[in-house]
């Protein structure tokens, strides 16, 4: 069994460009530290809202249970209430009937919030290129990470969440509301 080498640069890392002096002054030491701390705490205790809609939900549950135990990374228990969650994992087929609910759940989440589209259906409609299925949850809400698979392995999901953590780390300024 061979493994593919990932080609090119990591698409998740946003390389910083040269900044003007004013910009650098604005991001002074104190703020940067607070920023970094905020980001560190955020990325290490993401509380997911599991939007388990179909098959992928089972693999998502698999990722949270004994074998893969996502709690190791501080992604604690499922939060079924959107108010208490900051990461939405859309796992499964988003149908047209379900779409408004997905959107509402996302709106109810408090900032800062992130979205992972797990599996082909949530990413792009997947095998269901039909009248009933929303062709990608990004038609409804902004998606940060796409995790391919049908369904993805729990490892794939964890990898996706790792990538999300990298992304949070790379975010310019922590969003404070």
């Amino acid at each position, binding site marked *: 069994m*061979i493994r593919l080498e990932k080609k090119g640069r990591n698409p998740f890392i946003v390389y910083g460009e040269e900044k003007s002096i004013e910009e650098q002054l604005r991001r002074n030491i104190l703020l940067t530290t607070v920023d970094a701390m905020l980001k560190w705490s955020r990325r290490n205790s993401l509380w997911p809202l599991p939007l388990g809609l179909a098959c992928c939900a089972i693999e998502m549950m698999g990722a949270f249970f004994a074998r893969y135990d996502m709690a190791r990374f501080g992604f604690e228990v499922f939060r079924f209430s959107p108010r208490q969650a900051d990461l939405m994992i859309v796992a499964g087929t988003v149908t047209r009937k379900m779409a408004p609910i997905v959107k509402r759940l996302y709106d109810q989440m408090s900032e800062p919030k992130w979205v992972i589209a797990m599996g082909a259906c949530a990413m*792009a409609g997947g095998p269901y290129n039909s009248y009933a299925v929303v062709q990608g949850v990004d038609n409804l809400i902004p998606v940060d990470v796409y995790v*391919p698979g049908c369904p993805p392995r729990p490892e794939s999901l964890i990898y996706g969440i790792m990538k999300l953590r990298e992304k949070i780390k790379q975010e310019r300024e922590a969003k404070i509301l």
Partner: protein
Amino acid sequence: MIGPLIKGLTITFKYIFKKKFTVQYPEERRELPPRAKWLHILQRHEDGKERCVACMLCASACPTEAIYIVGEENDLENPISHGERYAKVWDLDLGRCMFCGYCVEACPEEALAMTDEYELAVPTRKDLVLHKEDLLVEPGTPPVKTWLGFYRKEPIGAMPVTRPMEVHVEYEEYLKRRGPREAHE
């Protein structure tokens, strides 16, 4: 009161000393079985030419229409694949693919195989479309024997492709005679 508590704790202690069931994923990557059906690769012949001849059987076998191929005629002087045609475009759409492996089964050239590469998360939807460049292995990569061609007995190296160079028309020969202009001028 104390009885059930002790009973419950016995189970707890029983599990404390058992082998850990949890896989420490990012550090410890579990070996997948050889039949794992994850990301596709496009293989090459031993001489470095591409195996894919754009016969489009994989695209037609795909239940979700995740594969898109445009065939093209090989360049006269340095052919890209054996045979007359090669895939100019070979796109795999992970946004549709359900990793059923039917494409690998369909491939009459053993050009397609599936690997155990499951770490596929990408940041944008555009990245979900993998092109031929992303999937093609480096020349010299040892061939993957796909289990979906399970009914095959011989090892992959000794296998002739559908249009082998030795058996049919001497390929290089007729490449030289090619060219419509030559034919009528």
